[in-house]
């Protein structure tokens, strides 16, 4: 049962609704919740500690931005039945195809390293050594894809999306002044004015909203799931629910550190969890579990996004429905990425901090290309047909979003290279 339409057969209304819910929830929710990966959680906890609840309104704005970009991948995937890597090769030729492929591979691998850093740091709080975390993650993620069904893989991944909501009860545990949260959080303002630090944090939050892997992942997932043109509406609902969840998690993350660690300079989410332990042990533990889960979700999606891309480009079998003997290179590449990133994190003295900073800069070289190609493809009537190409309104919104994303992500990347660019 691959499509929504097939699920809508027989049974009572409640059963129909539940079946539909089970079928539609997938790539959109996964990609959006996984967007709150280890790096994202670190950004939110740092934002909450630095500015309290003052930037919650800004996080709310990021939800629709993520939705509008990712929704385009649903239409493109469902109509063309091609992943983003293959679509770029086909439409723009081998130069842009190879550029996108190699840049995606490098960015994804570096991001995967940062996810392992987050996962090992999260579980180290509970006394679990890094090597054990890496081993467990590699074995678990390996088992997840080797079971031979996209459907099962997706549903297991969705369970980890549910765990990501752990920041909601964590926020209630620290008992924040809800009236103040709502009052200061909803009204748009910039606490302390438009300082260099504020600009940096705004750019960092935007930088975590859309990453290149998200575009490639969702389009490939839509194809692997077998969504058809008639399922596009459900894919859009799935993406909308996902963008709502990602904002909810981000807001509650900010509330936790805004309430408990005001004015503290947070360098990592693990540091925030540790600092929270003496204040509220359970909330601190939840932060650590959430960090591990965020890293795991990121790793699940990012490694798969790279494997799908290499399969698309080289024309190898690349579906999670394939057995290992049917798609050996797809699975081999997946394990190569996973194991190499995991091992690197365990090497004493490896330049991990430099790598995590470098990942943002490399991602910024790919993000504009991925987004511009997305819009150009969505405007191609020959490819999309009149019905599914971008409307004028969609173009106005998407152009505004893409230009803003490019400017702010580039600014964030430049700040990483030249820290005093916007002053302090």
């Amino acid at each position, binding site marked *: 049962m691959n499509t929504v339409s097939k699920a809508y057969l027989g049974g009572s209304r409640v059963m129909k609704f539940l079946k539909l819910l089970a079928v539609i929830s997938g790539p959109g929710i996964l990609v959006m919740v996984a967007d709150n990966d280890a790096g994202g959680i670190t950004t939110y906890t740092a934002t909450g500690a630095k500015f309290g609840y003052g930037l919650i309104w800004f996080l709310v704005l990021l939800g629709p931005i993520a939705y509008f970009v990712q929704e385009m991948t649903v239409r493109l995937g469902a109509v063309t039945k091609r992943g983003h890597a293959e679509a770029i090769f086909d439409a723009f*030729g*081998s130069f842009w195809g190879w550029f996108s492929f190699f840049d995606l591979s490098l960015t994804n691998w570096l991001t995967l390293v940062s996810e392992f850093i987050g996962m090992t740091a999260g579980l180290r709080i509970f006394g679990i050594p890094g090597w054990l975390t890496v081993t467990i993650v590699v074995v678990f993620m390996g088992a997840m894809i080797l079971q031979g069904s996209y459907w099962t893989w997706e549903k297991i991944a969705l369970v980890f999306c549910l765990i990501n909501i752990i920041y909601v009860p964590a926020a209630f545990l620290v008992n924040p002044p809800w009236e103040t949260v709502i009052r200061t959080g909803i009204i748009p303002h910039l606490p302390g004015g438009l300082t260099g630090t504020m600009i940096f944090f705004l750019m960092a939050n935007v930088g975590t909203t859309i990453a290149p892997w998200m575009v490639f992942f969702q389009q490939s997932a839509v194809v692997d799931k077998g969504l058809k043109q008639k399922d596009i509406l459900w894919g859009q609902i799935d993406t909308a629910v996902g963008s709502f969840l990602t904002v909810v998690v981000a807001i509650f993350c900010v509330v936790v550190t805004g309430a408990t660690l005001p004015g503290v300079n947070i360098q990592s989410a693990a540091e925030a969890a540790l600092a929270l332990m003496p204040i509220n042990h359970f909330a601190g533990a939840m932060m650590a579990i959430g960090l591990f889960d965020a890293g795991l979700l990121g790793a699940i999606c990012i490694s798969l996004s790279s494997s799908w891309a290499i399969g698309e480009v080289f024309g190898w079998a690349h579906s999670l429905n394939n057995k290992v003997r049917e798609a050996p290179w797809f699975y081999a590449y997946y394990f190569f990425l996973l194991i190499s990133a995991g091992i690197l994190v365990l090497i004493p003295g490896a330049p991990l901090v430099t790598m995590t900073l470098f990942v943002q800069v490399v991602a*910024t*070289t790919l993000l504009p290309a991925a987004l511009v190609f997305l819009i150009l493809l969505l405007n191609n009537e020959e490819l999309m047909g009149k019905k599914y190409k971008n409307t004028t309104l969609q173009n106005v919104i998407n152009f505004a979003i893409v230009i803003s994303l490019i400017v702010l992500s580039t600014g964030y990347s430049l700040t990483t290279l030249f820290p005093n660019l916007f002053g302090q």
Partner: protein
Amino acid sequence: MRMRDESFTDFFQAVREINAKYKTPRIKMTPMVNASLVMLRFYLIGMVLLLAYKFATLVIR
């Protein structure tokens, strides 16, 4: 060693086939598409130059 040579040959053959398959971009080169691709090239050149500058300053220090 021979097997390794063969797999490398296969790999480069695959790359050549991909290059041949996607030699001509399929998208219609409208002014918007052309302008976007030119801007992307300039953007990338700018980013690479900045990265090179940063690397050079780090090495000199």
